């Protein structure tokens, strides 16, 4: 099994965290089956003072690669909002190692870091990239590493390089090797067709998970990144399903009268929080995979919905209109202590927590009546608006906490957009067709 998509040997322990997504190789095998247009990126607003970096073209001497690695790396870094990459037509030279870098030339061009790489073919269909990061001001090499994979994993190789460079410069773990799940709705022959899709975090390699003429909503990842849980109306009622990414094996988890919604996988993977209205009105329940038992957690005549876990698994945040309007509450499991979390404005809903457990993002109704994405620091209670469109929804936080993806209405369509958690960088991922809804950012894929 030489072709198995192993990552080769890296000279760093960090190779452990790259687990080549099983899907990667298959996506290319089956492109005909998922020939729909991929998402593409359009940066609308960059950071005020991004780091200037040059990613030198990575080419195979005397050969051709199945894709442009440095273009993917540059797009990753640009999309973070923290970097601005140099256009390759402005580069005076294409060094392949730090020894070949003429630092003065890059310094004059205002470049702070240079990424160079030597690409080899260790075997047919295999790519090995030895890449280095150089700091121009210090005229020094920051690191040299290598990564190896199959031709089908070219994008994984590129995202690994992006992650490594990003972390070396910012100190923040890169999240370019992660994925997103989302739902699209398109009108096809007068019928609305819903699709549950998974793609790379940059929108590439979109893969179909489920197609239905009935609504699909609320996808969420399992903590190991191998499964999705979501709501499908295919039985003519909402029901919660779980589905493995690798082989599409799926299982219907709920089949109650009334609402079966808003599933959220617990951090330990053992249970789901969800909303059921089987006992009269929407309440939060806990479902245990082991015992298959449902435990009711809330008891109020108001709407309780949209539960999300704190990273330690000890509490849930959820939306409730028990105070007369939707606000976010925190329920500590065990003690059942309930506290109201949000107080700014008359509509705060759909809480999502960053992995630090401290940054809460939500949908907030602004003074002008529009719905925007807002964040609140749960320690200082500092509240800030991250977006300013008229109808933004469904925020999801990258596993490194640096970016928030959400949906935004553009004219008659909804598109995916991303904003840095400091609100300084923003971009959209316009889809070619239909509405895009409810992105869910995967955890780090090991």
């Amino acid at each position, binding site marked *: 099994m030489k072709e198995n998509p*192993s990552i080769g040997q890296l000279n760093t322990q960090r190779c452990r965290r790259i687990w080549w997504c099983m899907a990667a190789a298959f996506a290319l095998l089956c492109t005909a*089956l998922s020939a729909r247009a991929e998402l593409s990126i359009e940066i609308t607003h960059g950071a005020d003072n991004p780091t200037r970096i040059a990613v030198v073209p990575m080419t195979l001497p005397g050969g051709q690669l199945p894709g442009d690695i440095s273009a993917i790396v540059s797009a990753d870094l640009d999309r973070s909002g923290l970097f601005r990459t140099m256009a390759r037509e402005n580069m005076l030279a294409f060094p392949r190692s730090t020894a070949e870098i003429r630092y003065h030339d890059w310094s004059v061009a205002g470049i702070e870091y240079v990424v160079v790489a030597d690409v080899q073919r260790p075997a047919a269909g295999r790519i090995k990239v030895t890449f280095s990061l150089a700091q121009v001001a210090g005229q020094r090499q920051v690191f040299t590493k290598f990564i190896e994979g199959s031709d089908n994993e070219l994008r994984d190789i590129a995202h690994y390089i992006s992650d490594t460079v990003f972390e070396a410069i910012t100190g923040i773990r890169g999240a370019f090797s992660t994925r997103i799940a989302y739902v699209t709705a398109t009108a096809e022959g007068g019928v609305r067709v819903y699709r549950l899709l998974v793609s790379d975090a940059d929108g590439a390699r979109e893969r179909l998970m489920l197609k239905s*003429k009935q609504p699909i909503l609320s996808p969420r990842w399992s903590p190991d990144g191998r499964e999705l849980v979501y709501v499908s109306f295919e039985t003519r009622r909402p029901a919660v399903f779980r*589905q493995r990414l690798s082989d599409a094996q799926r299982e219907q988890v709920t089949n109650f009268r009334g609402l079966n919604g808003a599933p959220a996988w617990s951090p330990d993977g053992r249970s789901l929080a969800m909303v059921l209205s089987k006992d009269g009105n929407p309440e939060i329940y806990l479902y245990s995979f082991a015992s298959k038992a449902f435990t009711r957690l809330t008891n109020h005549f108001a*709407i309780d*919905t949209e539960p999300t876990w704190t990273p330690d698994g000890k509490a849930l945040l959820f939306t409730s209109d028990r105070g007369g309007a939707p606000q976010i509450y925190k329920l500590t499991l065990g003690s059942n202590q309930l506290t109201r979390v949000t107080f700014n404005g008359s509509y705060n809903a759909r809480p999502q927590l960053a992995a630090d457990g401290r940054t809460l993002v939500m949908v907030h109704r602004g003074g002008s009546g529009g719905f925007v994405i807002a964040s609140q620091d749960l320690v200082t209670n500092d509240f800030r608006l991250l977006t300013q469109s008229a109808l933004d929804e469904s925020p999801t936080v990258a596993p490194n906490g640096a970016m928030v993806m959400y949906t935004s209405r553009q004219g008659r369509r909804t598109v995916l957009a991303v904003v840095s958690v400091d609100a300084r960088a923003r971009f959209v991922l316009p889809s070619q067709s239909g509405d895009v809804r409810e992105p869910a950012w995967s955890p780090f894929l090991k």
Partner: protein
Amino acid sequence: MTMKSLTNLFFAGFVAILLAACSSTTPDSDAVGAGVGGSGSGNGVATGTVGDGSIGGADAYDAGGLETVFYFDFDKATLRPESRSALQGHAANLRGNPKHIRLEGHTDERGTREYNMALGERRGNAVRDFLVLNGVDTSLIEVVSYGEESPASAGGDESSWALNRRVELK
């Protein structure tokens, strides 16, 4: 994580996808599950088949020309006065000739999706409660909320939103 287990996982996935890719037809069902990389079935990958959402057959409720769509104000689940006479007509029909009905609750696109699911159910419940109050057997009525997922009008302004905040009696 051992390389061997990784290899095994891959091999299993590879076989599954090959089978999927070799299947030349996709069943014409409303819901087709797919593995990463393909939309195929044919190797037993989860495939669900469901109806088209309409209730047909001899047992269907005949509205007899009465209005079957009832509209609501933003973020409200209170019946409008103009909905009452038609609903009283339905109640009379259902008392005289009991049939199973569905009340499908909907919202406009503003607000979060799952909150709107709950709001749509609240609207459906408001219609149900009115019918029950007027003598309809509650066991005949199923409320299903679609939240903002099935708008009647695709526009993004109040004229469309007003059409989308509704309960449909079927």
